């Protein structure tokens, strides 16, 4: 069974702080996505990384795919209250199936 463990599970920080969320697995993935979900809404795709070692930036968010394509990280610089939400990583498994494997989630709260 493929599992994606995210850490930390919960994170409460002040506005302006930096943070990193990790997404780890023992399995290799063909791609890795990050979603953000706000209360009462569905997850919204932030980014997809497909190449080992790939780094993508989205304003203050930096995403990295591990060299071995087993892990990923999300770094937020100078967090803002609008960054509050549930962050989910999701792996596209190798082998031709079309099933995304979602991570365990990280709940981020940014206080003004």
């Amino acid at each position, binding site marked *: 069974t493929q599992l994606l463990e995210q850490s930390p599970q919960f994170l409460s920080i002040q506005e302006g702080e930096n943070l990193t969320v990790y997404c780890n697995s023992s399995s290799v993935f063909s*791609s890795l996505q990050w979603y953000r979900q706000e209360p009462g809404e569905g997850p919204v795709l932030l980014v997809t990384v497909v190449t080992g070692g790939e780094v993508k930036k989205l304003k203050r968010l930096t995403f990295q795919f591990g060299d071995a394509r087993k892990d990923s990280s999300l770094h937020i610089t100078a967090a803002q209250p609008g960054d509050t939400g549930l962050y*989910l990583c999701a792996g*596209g498994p190798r082998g031709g199936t079309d099933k*995304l494997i979602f991570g365990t*989630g990280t709940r981020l709260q940014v206080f003004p």
Partner: protein
Amino acid sequence: DTAVSQTPKYLVTQMGNDKSIKCEQNLGHDTMYWYKQDSKKFLKIMFSYNNKELIINETVPNRFSPKSPDKAHLNLHINSLELGDSAVYFCASSQDPYQGYEQYFGPGTRLTVT
């Protein structure tokens, strides 16, 4: 325009009842999905349809039956509801299930079984 829509948003019902959730996408995608998100926010796939054909059927009780009348719609019917069915159910769609997994989610249906 809403890309992926679900109805109803909230559903409260008693054990043993039968209920349906409807989903529609206007993105022109070929593939649609149903996910269940439990109280710990863990999101797990239930079903996937590609051009009205069932392609993923996870270990889900037979009480759950998806139906896709056309590729823009995927409905979920649940028979004999149980307390453990309480969760948020999300519909999603993607362009191509075999070349990318970027999915677009609906707003969710919060099902409460009493």
